[in-house]
């Protein structure tokens, strides 16, 4: 089990009086666009009111991130009828009438975000803990070195020299544990002399989060060649990990070294009232906060052009993975290769020429900003997204595991049911909230399409609420949560999430034509009951803001959360899609025969009204 992972940077926030905060301006500097949102206190409640967007200006010729920020903020100001930027191009604070804002906060993933190299003794143990710390802080892990990665030292050194990470996290050994392996890793990193990505004149930031008894030896190895920061061990004992000190240090160094050397970031840091966070780190923070507050298990996904981020909180343990090669534009070709075209096409309910599709994939790769112009193109893109999401979630399940190397306690009764450590903690049956974000999900022309992409890819079981991030506001709210949690939670509830509805699905293999479950739905103006056969979907209108009480009785060994064959009653939430009953098998099985598969998908498409004429 992990220790408390709440991340609070050691770089202190500026002193703020929370009661006097009425106007909040937040930006997220992405790789291509900088998004600004305005949050205002209206009738005692915080609401997101306006939004603006402008191209990011980190790259040449502008090479100053604040120009893009100013442009986005200006657009928000024009929409809101407020003046945010003064004549010197700086953000006006505090708010006074129609001028300025009370606080300004920002996240950043510009220039590829925070890219890290991670090293640990055993790949599945301390190196995995270090990777979790880095990913949780919002980094992209470029490479993981370990003593057992079967590479020779010269190969490891060569690999380090090939990479240009923003910083390095070195971990390994329990406190009082191995020293030789940790020092050995330091002796590989030190002579490799890794060069930082930004700023040739500053030293590479290295965080040491390993065996505390080896810290001095590691310091001796690195001498003054790197900017070494020693924090508490990510794995002080084998039985638990302690990630927050390492995560906080990553945030600090991200600001002190990486951001400070990126074009224009020194100015942006001085503007911000709270430390600038890596975008995925902020998204993770808000998801964790919501899950902790409501005592629920949640999964969030952000599918982008090049990467897909999956965040999960199960039983209070937060995990994040970045699937670097799964995306909808730059990485679309890789999705088709990894999933195979046959698997992509199984989601398409009409005939498609595979050759034409391959051309379409390559075109999307070289022209990443294009969007589908025809219905066929849209169906195909959503089919690809299902596979990208499925693969990303699969990778996430493999990464989000219990700790390895922990002593087990057995009884004689365990003789035939022994299980190894490192089992996934992701359990779809206990998943309560599934949040989607990213172009293909957020900008789908029909919300039912978003719901079905989520259900087909993630295969939720039991009762799961589906939602989407309306305008990709979660990064802004993540960083706001570190300054003003109440404002962040209010906006998250009221403006950030668009509820799609609730999916009620049976776990187990259902048989076509045989009753899989019986249901009763009671709510305002609703009094329905019926049964569903295996392989069927049913959509029941239950609009946003409405709730209903649903009783489901699964048949045979099928399960909806109360155990095989046991009925379960729950209150469900409506949304733009409604209440979805899913009696398809888990895992979801589609016929191998293309024609049969098309027929089945067509039936689902019609039931869910996915592509109405």
């Amino acid at each position: 089990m992990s220790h408390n992972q709440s991340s609070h940077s050691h770089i202190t926030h500026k002193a703020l009086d929370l009661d006097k905060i009425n106007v909040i301006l937040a930006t997220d500097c992405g790789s291509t666009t900088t998004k600004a949102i305005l949050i205002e206190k209206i009738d005692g409640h915080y609401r997101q009111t306006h939004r603006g967007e402008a191209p990011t200006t980190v790259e040449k010729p502008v090479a100053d991130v604040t120009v893009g920020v100013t442009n986005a903020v200006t657009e928000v100001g024009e929409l809101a009828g407020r003046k945010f930027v003064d004549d010197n191009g700086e953000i006006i604070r505090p708010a006074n009438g129609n001028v300025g804002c009370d606080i300004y906060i920002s996240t950043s993933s510009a220039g590829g975000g925070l890219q890290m190299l991670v090293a640990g003794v055993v790949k599945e143990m301390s190196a995995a803990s270090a990777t979790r710390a880095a990913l949780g802080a919002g980094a992209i892990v470029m490479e993981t070195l370990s003593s057992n990665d079967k590479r020779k030292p010269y190969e490891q050194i060569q690999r380090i020299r090939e990479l240009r990470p923003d910083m390095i996290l070195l971990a390994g050994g329990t406190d009082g544990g191995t020293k030789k392996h940790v020092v050995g890793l330091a002796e590989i990193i030190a002579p490799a002399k890794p060069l930082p990505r930004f700023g040739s004149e500053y030293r590479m930031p290295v965080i040491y989060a390993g065996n505390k008894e080896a810290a001095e030896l590691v310091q001796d190895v690195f001498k003054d060649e790197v900017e070494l920061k020693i924090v508490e061990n990510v794995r002080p004992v084998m039985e638990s990990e302690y990630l927050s000190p390492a995560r906080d240090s990553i945030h600090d160094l991200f600001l002190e070294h990486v951001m400070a050397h990126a074009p224009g970031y020194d100015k942006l840091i001085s503007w911000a009232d709270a430390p600038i966070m890596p975008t995925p780190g902020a998204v993770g923070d808000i998801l964790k906060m919501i899950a902790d507050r409501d005592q629920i298990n949640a999964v969030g996904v952000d599918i982008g052009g090049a990467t897909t981020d999956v965040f999960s909180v199960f039983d209070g343990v937060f995990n994040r993975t970045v699937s670097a090669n799964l995306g909808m534009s730059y990485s679309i070709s890789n999705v088709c290769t990894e999933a195979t075209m046959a698997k992509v096409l199984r989601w398409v309910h009409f005939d498609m020429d595979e050759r034409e599709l391959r051309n379409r994939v390559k075109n999307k790769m070289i022209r990443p900003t294009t969007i589908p112009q025809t219905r066929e193109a849209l169906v195909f893109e959503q089919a690809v997204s299902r596979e990208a999401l499925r693969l990303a979630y699969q990778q996430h399940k493999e990464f989000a595991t219990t700790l390895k190397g922990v002593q087990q306690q057995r009884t004689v009764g365990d003789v035939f049911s022994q299980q190894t450590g490192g089992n996934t903690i992701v359990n779809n049956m206990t998943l309560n909230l599934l949040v989607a974000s990213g172009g293909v999900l957020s900008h789908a022309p029909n919300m039912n399409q978003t719901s079905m992409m989520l259900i087909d890819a993630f295969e939720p079981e039991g009762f799961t609420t589906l939602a989407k991030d309306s305008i990709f506001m979660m990064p802004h709210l993540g960083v706001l949560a570190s300054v003003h949690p109440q404002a962040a939670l209010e906006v998250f509830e009221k403006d950030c999430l668009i509820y799609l509805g609730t999916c009620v699905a049976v776990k187990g293999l259902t048989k076509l034509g045989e009753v899989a479950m019986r249901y009763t739905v009671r709510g305002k103006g609703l009094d329905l009951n019926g049964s569903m056969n295996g392989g069927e979907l049913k959509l029941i209108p239950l609009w946003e803001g409405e709730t209903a009480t649903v009783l489901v009785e699964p048949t045979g060994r099928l399960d909806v959360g109360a155990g095989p064959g046991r009925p379960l009653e729950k209150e469900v939430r409506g949304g733009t899609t409604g209440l979805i009953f899913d009696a398809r098998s888990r895992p979801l099985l589609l016929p191998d025969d293309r024609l049969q598969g098309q027929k089945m998908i067509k039936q689902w498409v019609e039931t869910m009204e996915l592509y109405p004429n």
Partner: protein
Amino acid sequence: MKQTMKTLVGSRWTWMMLCVVMAWNAVTVSAAPPAPPSDIQVKDYPLDDGTAVKVIFKRSPDDTGAEETNFTGYSIRTSSEVNGFFKEALEVKKAADATEAAEVVDARVTGLKEGEPVFVRVYAVGADDETSTPIQTAESITPVMAWFDFHQIRLLILVIVICSAVILFIELARRGYPMTVRKVAGLEAIDEAVGRATEMGKKNLFIPGVQDINDIQTVAGINILARISRTVADFDSEIEVPTCRSLVMTAASETIEGAFLAAGRPDAFDPKSIYYVTDEQFGYVAYVTGWMVREKPAACFYFGAFFAESLILAETGNSVGAIQIAGTAQPSQLPFFVAACDYTLIGEEMFAASAYLSGAPEELGSLKGQDMGKVVAAACILFGCFLAFISPDLMKLIFEETAL
């Protein structure tokens, strides 16, 4: 004299005595021995293991197949000498009906010694175990072992089925047919255990049981030691192997050296870490547990034949906080290992470890083929139970009369 005769004839007692004598005579006349059988022929039984002869003879005229008769059957007796003591070797029942009575008797006499001449006599047996005069061949017969014992054909069938399955699965595995082996948690956890020792900077302990190298469990344990050593070498960790037998020490030493060599780390091999302690079971255990308490290994592996020491070792390992993986084919020790260790390999799993760990198609195919043999054996047992339950006669017919 005349007076005397008159007295006797006239006496009531005299008449009664006379009746008794006449009745006695009548009884003795009806219990006369049955007529003997005839035309005896004795031959060596073909296609057997040389312990049986075939005896053919014509039935006794009293063997008519009638139910109400004093005739009960035949007694076939054997002796190594022509006039020696003939011991009964087989009883043959009388004919059940007239049809059977018309046939000759063809009996198989077993229990003889291969290559030793034997004389055979056949008696017809009456109701009061009265026997007829015997019939006997003039010459002795010597049972001879044939090149193929037809009565063991069931074994041949089983061998063919199992061998065919093994060959078939090996061939399939070579051609890329996926061979799925059930996940054995204990073997999967080897990396985890060695990893724990590496992170904690502690040693790994391997105990190859307390039996010598001629014990198949010790051999299986050494086989697994090869894999553990390879992992230890890959992780740059350390392993300690105290042994209870000197030959096991030699085998373990060579195995570990080979594993370190294969991992490309021959320099890391420390021959001093593999050593002989004592043949004394509890002397050895006292040393090992003492070492465990002092050194606190982070991973303990017990693979081999264990007896009373199993719980002592496993409990000590548990108390020092080690991940423990055990494997033995001693059923009496399994509960102790299961309760005190993190993972336990049960009997067969330990022997299958080599195939499981290597993943070589030949070994996986062989494992699958052997499993098929076990499935066939289990199916035969179930079939036999079913037959015995529904029709014992049918079972007898199948398994006794048809040489199966």
